[in-house]
């Protein structure tokens, strides 16, 4: 029974996978039709106060045809028929460029599907050829690879840092580039802060932006109403955010991960609703404007400083340039972000940092070892919140305007996506992911409408393909026994 009849397999092999792939693609196309038909195909339009329908069946039909062929290509590839799959990919690419599609989106989809299929097919071929010449790996190969990986990640980190330090001195640095860089670094700092909570301690916090908001509003009110300096208000913002973290964390940290996620989400919404409705305190939906901007240790960045005050450019005898302020903000956020980064790297070696990682891996084992889970989680929560508070104060002083608009769930999701994309717990991964996410959102500003759509889809796909992060993943710092090593 174990030996198959060669004649039978030869006859059945070509037909069956093809049929199966066709069936698979047809099923997916049918489901897609049922899903998209009513929502996309029938658009409700307001016509003189009453709603009526606008039929868009031709678009949907084209999309379904596209879906069918894309899925067919994928299914063929999965069944080992790489060549037909590559052919379909080429056809899709050609169609994407040549066929006069009714909408730009369909063209983009066709090209994207073709490119993805082509990439997949090529990878499969490469893998098949490498599989033919593979040699059994030895232990020192593993060691060497690990050393190389460490070297590359260090080198990459150093290169990023040097690049960041030199960026404002580059000839191409204009205010747009600097503002984007400041945005990237702000998100990087927030993501590093959230990384302590999600990446190290394994607590899913969906309301992280609430602490950011607390920091921003604290700074706004302290500096505008009470005349606090940035450096005086910064620690207060951080501490207040941290105490909000404790306030929220204390009751709910006994809960399991999913409950925690929902409660933190709710908490973020509570903060936003309160800021939106408590107008006498927060300015309501209008927010707080004309917040004093940070100056250079007492020297303002202005062309014409008032009598008796030295402006920044006068202090150093420079020509006045509006870029000075941006450059100063850039270095400030760079330093703040690096503080978070260094803090995380150091604390990972301390007992509390190791307790976080241990809790992430196995909570019950930790409790058995005498680690108090509530306190340990609480410190992670409070420290993460504190860094968000710092970032919030920085945000308020650079924008000189805060409103509840800036602190929606989407922001939390964006920061979380950076952490997840980078790989939970990996510092370099998070930095690269912040660059990637903010850079891509800048690059696709023209497709603003579809940005969040792609973002949501990307989150799902990354989780499905690389649940532990796209770029890298950090294992716990120490192990009792080496992974894969001999256990007594």
């Amino acid at each position, binding site marked *: 029974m174990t030996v198959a009849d060669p004649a039978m397999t030869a006859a059945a092999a070509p037909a069956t996978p093809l049929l199966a792939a066709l069936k698979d693609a047809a099923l997916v196309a049918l489901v897609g039709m049922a899903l998209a038909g009513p929502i996309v195909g029938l658009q*409700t339009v307001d016509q003189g106060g009453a709603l009526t329908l606008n039929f868009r069946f031709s678009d949907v039909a084209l999309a379904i045809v596209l879906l069918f062929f894309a899925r067919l290509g994928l299914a063929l590839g999965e069944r080992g028929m790489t060549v037909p799959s590559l052919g379909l990919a080429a056809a899709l690419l050609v169609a994407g460029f040549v066929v006069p599609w009714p909408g730009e989106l369909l063209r983009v989809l066709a090209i994207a599907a073709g490119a993805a299929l082509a990439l997949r097919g090529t990878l499969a071929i490469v893998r098949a050829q490498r599989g033919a010449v593979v040699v059994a790996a030895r232990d020192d190969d593993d060691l060497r690879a690990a050393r190389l990986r460490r070297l590359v990640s260090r080198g990459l980190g150093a290169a990023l840092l040097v690049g960041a330090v030199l960026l404002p001195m580059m000839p191409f640095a204009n205010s747009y580039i600097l503002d984007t860089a400041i945005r990237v670094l702000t998100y990087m700092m927030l993501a590093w802060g959230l990384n302590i909570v999600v990446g190290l301690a394994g607590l899913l916090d969906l309301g992280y932006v609430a602490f950011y908001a607390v920091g921003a509003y604290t700074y706004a009110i302290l500096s505008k109403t009470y005349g606090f300096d940035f450096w005086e208000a910064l620690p207060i913002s951080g501490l207040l955010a941290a105490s909000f973290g404790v306030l929220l964390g204390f009751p*709910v940290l006994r809960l399991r991960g999913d409950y925690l996620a929902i409660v933190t989400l709710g908490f973020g919404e509570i903060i936003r609703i309160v800021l939106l409705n408590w107008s006498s305190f927060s300015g309501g939906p209008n927010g707080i404007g004309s917040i004093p901007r940070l100056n250079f240790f007492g020297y303002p960045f202005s062309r014409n400083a008032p009598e008796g005050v030295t402006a920044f450019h006068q202090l150093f005898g420079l020509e006045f340039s509006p870029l000075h302020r941006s450059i100063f903000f850039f270095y400030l956020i760079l330093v703040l972000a690096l503080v978070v980064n260094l803090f995380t790297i150091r604390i990972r070696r301390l007992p509390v940092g190791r307790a976080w990682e241990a809790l992430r891996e196995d909570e019950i084992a930790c409790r058995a070892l005498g680690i108090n889970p509530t306190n340990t989680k609480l410190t992670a929560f409070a420290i993460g919140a504190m860094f968000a508070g710092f970032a919030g104060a920085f945000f308020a002083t650079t924008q000189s305007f805060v409103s509840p608009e800036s602190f929606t769930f989407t922001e939390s*999701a964006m920061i979380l996506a950076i952490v997840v994309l980078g790989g939970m717990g990996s510092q370099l991964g998070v930095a690269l992911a912040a660059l990637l996410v903010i850079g891509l959102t800048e690059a696709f500003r023209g497709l603003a409408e579809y940005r969040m759509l792609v973002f949501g889809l990307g989150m799902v796909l990354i989780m499905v393909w690389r649940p532990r992060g796209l770029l890298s993943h950090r294992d716990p710092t120490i192990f009792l026994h080496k992974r894969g090593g001999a256990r007594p």
Partner: protein
Amino acid sequence: MEYLVQQLINGITLGSVYALIAIGYTMVYGIIGMINFAHGEVYMVGAFVSMIGIILMGLIGITWVPLALAVVLLAAMAITALYGWSIERVAYRPLRGSFRLAPLISAIGVSIFLQNYVQIAQGARPKPIKPVIRGGFEVMTSADGFTVTLSYLQIFIVLLTIALMTGFTYLITKTTLGRAQRACEQDRTMASLIGVDVDRTISMTFVMGASLAAVAGLMVTLYYGVIDFYIGFLAGIKAFTAAVLGGIGSLPGAVLGGLLIGLIEALWSAYFSVEYKDVAAFTILVFVLIFRPSGLLGRPEIEKV
């Protein structure tokens, strides 16, 4: 007094809607031990499909309300159920056995996707539709002229909820599928060993939850007469609160919790402030989780090592 009665009627209506959504959370939690984060968005899709269905009925000229509603109800349930099924296939099934946070994060991705998908396909502006079921009873009138009304629509919502609850209770306690579901809740590995198709059971759970959410979507479309792409977020959180309040994993608990949340929201809006009614739901959630994490009708959770 009359005002209170009116608010109780409104609260029960609202609570029926929450209860229907909460069942979806409870069933999925019971079977895979996870919060289906995209469930609020499934309900929103259900509301949109219902709205499109109602307009379509008007366009093709089916004017007899019971028939039109029946057709829309069934179509919305079927299409929304397919959404639930696809979500399970795309965002949950590939991640079964992956680490704890992965499915939760992919579900957040799904909910962001669905929100923006509906926003792009249907527009961001709130959609108003004409009332389909009009009229009602005047229950009582107070001395100063305040009239308590019980509309036909409210009766319809509550009766439909009761009918669906009865049907689902039967489905879960008496049928093979329900037995398979309960077996999977107890122990998935064991269930698969004795021949339960676990994948199919989980799919069916998502389908059932989504079709109930579609009914809730239809009810809300009829009740408020205006929907937008953002309604899933808050309703999802409130229904989740309802499920936790009643004891997550328990079907009667979800109904009880839904009714309680609806009543609390109606009374809070009436006697305190409308602006902070959503804050009330979150606060209840936190307090329930602190003082009675297993909910009103739930069993305490046993930690498995």
